[in-house]
């Protein structure tokens, strides 16, 4: 199959040589692979954007999951932001609250757009709708944000993994956060190379993150990991825009993520058998939700 890029190096080189945005290279590749028109592709992505907007809106009004484990935190965060005394700043907390809002809707079996997965669906829209307030992008730039995220996600999915069952949470929230930071950089006017630096910095800080959902539900700790993924993305984007670079090239970081995922025990890859799922409280919550006897932790 002919593609315009197989790794981040090729993606950045192509964008810089042709003096194009990363989002543009992604759109062109999509046209090439699917033989669909630019308009078709843009329309489909705008639909996804609309789903994301609606999910955030719904989450900010307050939703609760069936299990009762998650919900309502996005509302708490927005109320806290309004008081104006937040320590991490309005943009940061806004990104966090909107990421949480999306994942609370997801946990409540609402409609979301997977980016790249459902468990990590909060990071990309959360950061997008927060930086939007500061950067005032056009609708097209917001759609492009998703293509830039998608370009990096495409590389990760094909060269490593975006599945928690295959690679742990680093493959899901880790990938989502890194994708988002690359997209923030483009929206803020950074270079393709700076996008790749932001991606590498974020991913490096997510390496090793395990997938250990309590009771197997995409709730604890998934919702809050999206919050941290969003904040990580914003910080790394600022670092890259400041000129900070990653000593380990982006593609090698992705390779490391794959290797770490391979060597991670299956108890820590979405089987709900290890980590937080195996804590006494994790086990207790599981038995409370699904019935059955409480068994010892860590087995």
């Amino acid at each position, binding site marked *: 199959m002919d593609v315009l890029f197989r790794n981040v190096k090729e993606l950045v080189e192509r964008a810089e040589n042709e003096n194009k945005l990363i989002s543009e290279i992604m759109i062109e590749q999509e046209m090439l692979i699917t033989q669909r028109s630019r308009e078709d592709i843009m329309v489909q*992505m705008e639909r996804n954007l609309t789903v994301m907007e609606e999910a955030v809106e719904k989450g900010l009004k307050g939703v609760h999951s069936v299990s009762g484990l998650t919900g309502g935190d996005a509302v708490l965060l927005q109320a806290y932001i309004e008081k104006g005394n937040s320590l991490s700043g309005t943009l940061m907390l806004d990104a966090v609250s909107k990421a949480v809002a999306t994942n609370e809707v997801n946990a409540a079996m*609402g409609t979301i*757009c997977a980016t*790249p997965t*459902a*468990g990590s*669906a909060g990071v990309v829209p959360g950061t997008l709708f927060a930086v939007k307030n500061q950067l005032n992008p056009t609708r097209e730039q917001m759609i492009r944000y998703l293509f830039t995220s998608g370009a990096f996600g495409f590389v990760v999915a094909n060269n490593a993994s975006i599945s928690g069952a295959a690679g742990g949470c680093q493959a899901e929230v880790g990938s989502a956060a890194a994708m988002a930071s690359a997209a923030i950089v483009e929206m803020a006017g950074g270079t393709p190379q700076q996008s790749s630096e932001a991606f590498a910095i974020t991913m490096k800080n997510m390496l090793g993150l395990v997938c250990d959902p309590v009771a197997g539900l995409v709730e604890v700790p998934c919702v809050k990991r999206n919050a941290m993924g969003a904040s990580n993305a914003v910080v790394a984007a600022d670092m890259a825009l400041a000129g900070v670079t990653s000593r380990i090239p982006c593609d090698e970081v992705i390779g490391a993520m794959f290797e770490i995922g391979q060597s991670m025990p299956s108890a820590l890859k979405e*089987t*709900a058998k290890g980590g937080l799922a195996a804590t006494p409280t994790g086990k207790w919550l599981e038995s409370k939700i699904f019935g059955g006897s409480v068994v010892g932790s860590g087995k």
Partner: protein
Amino acid sequence: MKFKSVFDIIGPVMIGPSSSHTAGAARIGRVARDLFGRQPEWAKIHLYGSFAETYKGHSTDVAIVGGLLDYDTDDERIKTSFDEAAEAGMEFEFIPETGHTDHPNTARVVVGDSHSEMSMVGISIGGGKIEITELNGFPLRLSGNHPAILVVHDDRSGCIANVSNCLYKYDINIGHMEVSRRQKGEMALMVIEVDQTVERSIMDELRQLPNITQVTRIAD
């Protein structure tokens, strides 16, 4: 490359909570229904690996049943699919297995009615993408790097020529193809990997060809 489209990454639009365990599961169920060709009267779903460990929490069960009822990943009715199945007269049973499989998210879906039954194995590879790896005991060997369709047909001369002619007509290039059959003159199948996406209208046209019983997409 297993992931070809940007919409494999930014998408699908779906009912939560998990792309692999909910959206992918719904797609596995839907392909099973597609291959069976009609609403089954009963379904036995064997779950392996992470599917077996966490299916309740991820609503994998309601999603597969939703798929068997022909619901797409973003269909709100997935949430109430057990009730909808009762209404549609479809019985189902979930069997968590402990056996080892190549992929952590594997489901064997056995469906049937008073006329026939069918067994299919699907895997959910992340982000809502799935692959079908076995049908009625036939292993479907896919490279996973290209879109693929599965054609089930009666073992008669001309079937393969007709199908490849039809694909040629729409300028769809075949990259790899495997044919197999159970017994001479009985059920046979073709697994065809192509370079382009096979649109629904082309699949409909393939279905109209003589001696073809089923056509479905098994890898996007």
